[in-house]
């Protein structure tokens, strides 16, 4: 535990002593703010029109017109940004040779994996927290559904965690940050769009693909629904990639 914490602290210090965390967080907050402004402005416009049209007014809701698309947009930005947080985690240790020293200390592979993973998750948590002024503004001017806000953020956080686990796995494979980053992006994107083909593949395959779709699971959260099915999905993918990462670290020792 103490060892995992030491690795966590060291990794966190790296993120916040270098421009990495600040750059990624700044870009994310800027884009999230822009999306929010755009969605809210559009909602405002339709609301004014709806004052003449009671039928339209009834179908207007902050959850479906602002929160849901906001979380969707954020997930696309995260797909681009989160690989930047994880791509150096193991590649850098390999390249500089510090992995050799690290694995002659009395620490287990899981100490190292969890230390690094939790540090990346912390940076990501801070990143999401920085966008909280957006829903706060909604509370100031209106009454959004608290359930939808909370579950939306939970879903977004869990989705990001799976990207981080994916990124850790790809960074454990080699010593090139660029390759690790690109592979993470590709893999994440595939998980986002895997559901697109469901209408024209056989129903059996379609059902499986739909279950694998990150978007589908995120949608449920964004609507305000916390389903164990979705929780288990994210937990499974995360654990799966962390496990693969541990296997890679172990096998690298045999091959090297």
């Amino acid at each position, binding site marked *: 535990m*103490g060892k995992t914490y*030491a690795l966590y602290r*060291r990794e966190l210090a790296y993120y916040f002593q*270098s421009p990495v965390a600040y750059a990624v967080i700044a870009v994310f907050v800027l884009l999230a703010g822009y999306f929010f402004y755009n969605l809210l402005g559009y909602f405002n416009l339709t609301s004014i029109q709806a004052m003449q049209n009671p039928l339209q007014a009834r179908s207007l809701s902050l959850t479906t017109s602002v929160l849901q698309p906001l979380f969707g947009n954020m997930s696309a930005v995260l797909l681009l940004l989160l690989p930047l947080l994880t791509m150096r985690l193991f590649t850098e240790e390999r390249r500089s040779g*510090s*992995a050799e020293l690290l*694995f*002659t*200390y*009395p620490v287990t592979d899981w100490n190292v994996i969890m230390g690094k993973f939790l540090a990346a998750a912390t940076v990501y948590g801070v990143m999401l927290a920085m966008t909280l002024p957006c829903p706060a503004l909604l509370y100031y001017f209106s009454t959004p559904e608290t359930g939808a806000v909370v579950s939306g953020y939970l879903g977004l956080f869990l989705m990001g965690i799976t990207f981080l686990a994916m990124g850790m796995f790809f960074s454990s494979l080699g010593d090139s940050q660029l390759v690790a980053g690109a592979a993470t992006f590709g893999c994440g994107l595939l998980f986002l769009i895997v559901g697109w083909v469901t209408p024209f593949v056989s129903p059996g395959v379609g059902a499986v693909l739909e279950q694998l779709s990150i978007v589908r699971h995120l949608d449920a959260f964004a609507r305000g629904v916390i389903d164990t099915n979705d929780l288990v999905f994210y937990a499974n993918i995360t654990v799966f990639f962390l496990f693969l990462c541990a296997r890679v670290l172990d096998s690298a020792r045999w091959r090297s």
Partner: protein
Amino acid sequence: MIEVTGLTKHFGPRTAVDEVSFSIGQGEIVGFLGPNGAGKTTTLRMLTGFLPPSVGSARVAGFDVDTQSMQVRSHIGYLPETVPIYRDLTVAYYLDFVGRLKGMPRARRRERTAEVIHACGIEDVFQQRIGTLSRGYRQRVGLAQALLNDPEVLFLDEPTVGLDPRQIVEIRDLIRSLAGRRTVVLSTHILPEVSLLCRRVLIIHRGRLIADARPEELQSHTGDALRVDVEARGELAAVRAAIESVEGVASVAGLDSAIAGIVRLRVAADSGADPREAIAATLAARNIGLRSLVTASVTLEDVFVQLVTREN
């Protein structure tokens, strides 16, 4: 303290370390000598628990390196060949980090940090970022992290490579001061370093252990005949004839000379003979100006050539 039996490491079809066996007792400083690529680093990596052996076993500080890797790792200190330390950290933060990873409680970390920064002479740079330090200081930080847990066994892989002469002397003094309680395995390809620090040398070549001897004994591997380099003023033929006439001289070979009128010769004596004074006297008698007469030092190359030829 270290028991190695039949240790072997394959990388695919290549055998990096081939059935190496030796044992090292407590408090010994042992030189691990060999040319680059001989398998020194791979052996050290297996002994430190970084790589598992393909065949064979090794016990360090009483624990098996493969099955009890964690216990082995807590009893050793390791300085890899390239000191791979995190450039973004200060020395203080780095040593604290290493102490935590080595599972040392806070009080002990503090106490040992004070000791190692004094022993390694890095008090001045304690608050500096490692990336800003010179090569010599970085090497000492590397040594400090290896010593932090007060290890029973210390593995040092080429600790003086890339240092300036003054730093080399300092690091060697430091290593010598560790002698006694601690077992030190020092990997190097510099023969004088071994003679200075170690009382025992293991020579590894193409993954195989080809010698286990005291440094003085290495000399005899090149044949027990004395070899002398002579520099004299005069004609090559005349000088040569003069030296060859001395009793106890087995052969004379010419060496390059940069100065006109000066000849340099390498003289090999008969086994057991010491014709140095006779050579000086003969040259003086024939009116040849003797400029220097030096016992040729045994180089690592000589030792290798001898050992490898004997192997074949």
